[in-house]
C-alpha cells in the first residue's frame, strides 16, 4: 500500500515578509524522491502522485498528501504545543518570586539600595507581549511573550535582536488548477501533533486523469515590526504555486501477471 505523502514547506519568513513575496524564500521537499518526485529542496518541487487502477477503471489506492509548514526563523515545530506558553509563565514566575523577596526586604529596610537595584533588574528581565491586529482591526495583546530562538524570554531591552522567534507561517487555503480540475480534494484537519497549534492541511488525490497539475498554497507570513515603539505581529497573505505529477498504473495479478487464478501451490 502506498505511503502517505508529506510536502514539507520551509519558509524564510523575515526575507519573504520584507520582499513581499515567497519566490526565492521558500524551499519544498517531500518523502517521495525514490518514487519520482523532482527538484527536492527548491521552490520548484514536483510531487509524484502514483496511483493504481483496477482493470474496470476504478481507483485501486487513495493517495493522501499532507502539508507541513515551518519557518526558518522560528522554533522547531516539533516542540510541545504549550512550549511558548510554559516559557512565558515560567519567566513571570521567576520575576514575581524575585520581586516578592525584594519587597519583603524593602519592608524591613526601606533605604536598601541593593534591594532597589534588584527590583529594577527583575522588572527589566520581564518579557514582552507584542500586539496583533484582531478580526475587528483592533490592536490586541498577544497571549505569548516574545521568545528568542533558544526559547528564552526576550526582555524589552533586546527587542531589536535578530534571533527573535518569529511566529511561524501558516497555510490558510489550497486552491488552483489541481483543485478546480477535481484532482486534489484539500481540507484542514486538527491533530494532537504540535504543528501550527494543531492544524494542518491535507488532501486526497484522484489519479484517474494522469498529467502535471499546479496548485496554489495560500500562506500567512508573520514578522515582528515596531510601530510607535511598540512591537506588533504583522502578517501578510501570500500565495505560492507548486506542482504535482499524477501517474497511474493498472493492477495486475502478482501470481499470474494477468487475471486471478489458482494459487501456485505445488
Amino acid at each position: 500500500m502506498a505511503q502517505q505523502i508529506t510536502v514539507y514547506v520551509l519558509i524564510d519568513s523575515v526575507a519573504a515578509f520584507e520582499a513581499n513575496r515567497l519566490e526565492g524564500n521558500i524551499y519544498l521537499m517531500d518523502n517521495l524522491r525514490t518514487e519520482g518526485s523532482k527538484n527536492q529542496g527548491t521552490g520548484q518541487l514536483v510531487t509524484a502522485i502514483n496511483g493504481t487502477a483496477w482493470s474496470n477503471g476504478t481507483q485501486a489506492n487513495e493517495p493522501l498528501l499532507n502539508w507541513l509548514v515551518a519557518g526558518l526563523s522560528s522554533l522547531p515545530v516539533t516542540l510541545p504545543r504549550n512550549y511558548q506558553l510554559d516559557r512565558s509563565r515560567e519567566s513571570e514566575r521567576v520575576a514575581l518570586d524575585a520581586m516578592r523577596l525584594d519587597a519583603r526586604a524593602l519592608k524591613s529596610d526601606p533605604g536598601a539600595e541593593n534591594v532597589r537595584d534588584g527590583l529594577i533588574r527583575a522588572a527589566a528581565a520581564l518579557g514582552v507581549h507584542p500586539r496583533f491586529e484582531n478580526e475587528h482591526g483592533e490592536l490586541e495583546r498577544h497571549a505569548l511573550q516574545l521568545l528568542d530562538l533558544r526559547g528564552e524570554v526576550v526582555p524589552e531591552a533586546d527587542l531589536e535582536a535578530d534571533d527573535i522567534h518569529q511566529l511561524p507561517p501558516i497555510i490558510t487555503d489550497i486552491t488552483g488548477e489541481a483543485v478546480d480540475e477535481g484532482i486534489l480534494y484539500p481540507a484542514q484537519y486538527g491533530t494532537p501533533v504540535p504543528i501550527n497549534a494543531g492544524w494542518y492541511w491535507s488532501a486526497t488525490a484522484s489519479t484517474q486523469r494522469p498529467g502535471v497539475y499546479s496548485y496554489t498554497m495560500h500562506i500567512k507570513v508573520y514578522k515582528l515590526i515596531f510601530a510607535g515603539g511598540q512591537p506588533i505581529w504583522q502578517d501578510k497573505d501570500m500565495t505560492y504555486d507548486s506542482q504535482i505529477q499524477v501517474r497511474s498504473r493498472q493492477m495486475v495479478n502478482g501470481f499470474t501477471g494477468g487475471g486471478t487464478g489458482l494459487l501456485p501451490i505445488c
Partner: protein
Amino acid sequence: MVGNINIAVAVDVAAALSGGSPDDVVFLIDDGSLASEGKGTSRLITDCVPGQLVRWRSYAIDLQTPVSIKAVRFLNWLDRGGDQAVGRDDVASGGPDWYNDSLDWSGIVPWFMVPGLAYRYRLTLQMGTGPNALISFDTAALKRVG
C-alpha cells in the same frame, strides 16, 4: 458457503529498515471465518477451503513509511520440511515500491491441497530502495481444513 480471506501484513517499517528480524517487525492477521493460528505474528497459519479467494495486502504501521509486497512464493515439497529460512532476501532490489503497488496478490485455494498440511509461503516485502529494503520470511502458511 465460506467467504474470501484477506491476509493483512502489517509492518513496522522503521524497525525493519533498522535491521529488525521478521518475527519482531511483521504482523500477519487474517479475517477468515475458520480457526487460524498465530494471528498477529509472522507465523500465521491461515485455515482455508478450496475455492476461497485469498488476498494479501501490506500496511505500514507508520503511514508515512513505504512498504509493498514484492513477492509471495509457495515453497515446494522439498523446501517445506527443511529449516525455516528467515532474514534478508537475496533478491536484487528492483524498482520503486510503486511498481509493487500495482500487483494484486490474490489467488484461489486449489482443490489439490492435502488437508491438514501447512503450505508455507515465502513473503518478500519491499520498503523503499535502500540497503535494508527487502525482507523475506517463510514462516506463514495456508492450511486446508475441509
